[in-house]
């Protein structure tokens, strides 16, 4: 049953509402309007021109970038979640209170430096005559082309999202009722099997939300695909900058941005629905 809106409740939800309107709804409306405007003589003019949409959505380069971005972000979500899980599991179940607090603190530290700086420093490590290849040369292997590759992009995506994914997973793991784990052991489920039979299903909501965050962060990321992936072939965010640079095509860039938002909304909705789905009636 829906409760009627009271002044009291409204007062507390007002900041949130204002924020949503000012920084999400208004720009979104403007972006939608912009996607129908026309560029004449390198100037953007208000118009109702669906041509931006038809042109953009019929170009192969757009769909290539779209599929590539979608696959990269999906891979990032899967890889980051898989690498983060043992880490979060260890912190949640193997560490005692004080070391756990330190681990959480260490997970926050990476956010102190700019993401851009961290990605630039990866270039020094990953380039053909960078630190890693120099070390590998000493034991007689390599060099490996790690920069300007999908591997490079993944390294960047991990830098961006790994600590956050670990933290989100950690909080969901810490809220698992420990008696469920004991009950599983007591019902003949061995330690490793309990992780998959009980821990993962019990923490499902948190694990899915963590993967979703990774997907959202990497889907719109511009830095890693450009500086570690080489920017060619482009992802959607690189395509946006290319489009705005070539002939001030802000309306077409708006089309790409809106497609991305629509995709994220669909993915987020699907993920949350999946996360909260219950077994049985």
């Amino acid at each position: 049953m829906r409760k009627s809106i009271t002044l009291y409740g409204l007062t507390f939800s007002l900041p949130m509402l204002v924020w949503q309107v000012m920084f999400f709804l208004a720009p979104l409306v403007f972006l939608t309007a912009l996607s129908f405007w026309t560029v004449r003589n390198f100037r953007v003019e208000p118009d109702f021109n669906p041509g931006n949409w038809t042109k953009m959505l019929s170009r192969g380069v757009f769909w290539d970038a779209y599929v590539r971005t979608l696959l990269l972000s999906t891979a990032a979500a899967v890889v980051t979640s898989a690498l983060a899980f043992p880490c979060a599991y260890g912190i949640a179940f193997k560490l005692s209170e004080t070391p756990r607090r330190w681990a959480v603190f260490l997970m926050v530290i990476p956010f102190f430096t700019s993401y851009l700086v961290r990605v630039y420093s990866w270039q020094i490590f990953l380039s053909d005559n960078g630190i890693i290849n120099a070390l590998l040369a000493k034991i007689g292997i390599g060099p490996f082309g790690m920069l300007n590759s999908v591997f490079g992009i993944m390294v960047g995506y991990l830098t961006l999202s790994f600590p956050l994914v670990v933290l989100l997973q950690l909080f969901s793991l810490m809220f698992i009722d420990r008696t469920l784990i004991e009950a599983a052991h007591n019902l003949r489920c061995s330690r490793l099997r309990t992780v998959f039979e009980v821990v993962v299903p019990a923490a499902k909501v948190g694990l899915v939300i963590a993967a979703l965050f990774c997907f959202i962060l990497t889907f719109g990321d511009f830095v890693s695909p450009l500086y570690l992936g080489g920017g060619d072939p482009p992802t959607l965010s690189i395509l946006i900058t290319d489009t705005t640079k070539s002939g001030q095509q802000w309306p077409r860039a708006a089309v790409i941005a809106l497609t991305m938002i629509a995709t994220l909304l669909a993915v987020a909705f699907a993920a949350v629905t999946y996360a909260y789905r219950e077994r049985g009636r």
Partner: protein
Amino acid sequence: MTDQALVVFDGVVKRFGNFNAVERMDLEIRKGEFLAIMGSSGCGKTTTLRMLAGLEAPTEGEIRLAGKRINDLPTWRRDTPMVWQSLALFPFLTVRENVEFSLRMRGVEKAERKKRVDKWLERMQITEFAERNVAHLSGGQRQRVALARSLVTEPKILLLDEPLSALDAHLKVRMQTVLSNLQKELGITFVYVTHSQSEAFSMADRVVIMSRGRIEQIGNPQEIYRAPRTRFVAEFLGSSNVFAGMVSAANGDALRIVTPSGEFDVARNPAKALIKGDKATFVVSGDRVQLTNEKPAGGVNGMEASVVGEEFVGATAVIHLEGADGLELKAQKSHDELERLNLMPGATIWVSWRADASHILPGE
């Protein structure tokens, strides 16, 4: 060790850091009995159960199940299923999947699993909820799911850790009957941990009373109720009056004991040899004392006491009194009996009992 013993605790000690949760416990649990372990919180009863389940390892001593040492056997290799206070049902599985869980872990094949799960769903009368989410069941239904989940592998022993404490009074009594009948039909051993005297005494064949990591008394409910061994047991059971003193005369079956609150005739307890000059503690159960306005006739123990207050316990009331030397006394009486008495707080009243209503604590 008797042939009947299914579980033996042999000098078992459990320490958590500096805290001794269980101290040198020797206990035999018989095949097919309903054993209740009772005590207040922190007495070591749950730790005892968890050691038997394999969820805690004993610090010292040995636990044997069917003659085999199980100290080092992890819980998933023991056959000691437990029912938790919180029930610990898996919320991400349906009722059927919960019950099926341990069969699946053992690699029982699908058709056989279905047959056995169906049998237990039927037996616990939860077949109609088989495909439901466990979160959508009532307390009593969840209880039945937890029992079915633990019993589906047909173990020799079932461990229960205060499983009824979350239920309302009516449902609790109904589940007590379910558990009692189930235990009789299956003929397996139930070890039931509780802090509730009524649960322990109404279901168990034998009751273990624990305090501060030690066993205070083991016996059937009547024995413990009528013949508590120690002061702790007498006070834990609640309605007994405790007198401590010294034997001033011992003739045949009759003893006379001097206490700070007076001198009383007490029946001898065969379990405790006493001669003149020995220290002795005896109890008089609250339902065996008489309350009168006038001094009772000779031949009974009696003392004056002032009324402190009245406590209603269903059909009866417990009158709290204070005797000579600040002695706390309790009398449990029906409301009819109390009508003719002056029970205003502060009023003086006579408390009396026959010598054979008293019981000497052999463990003191």
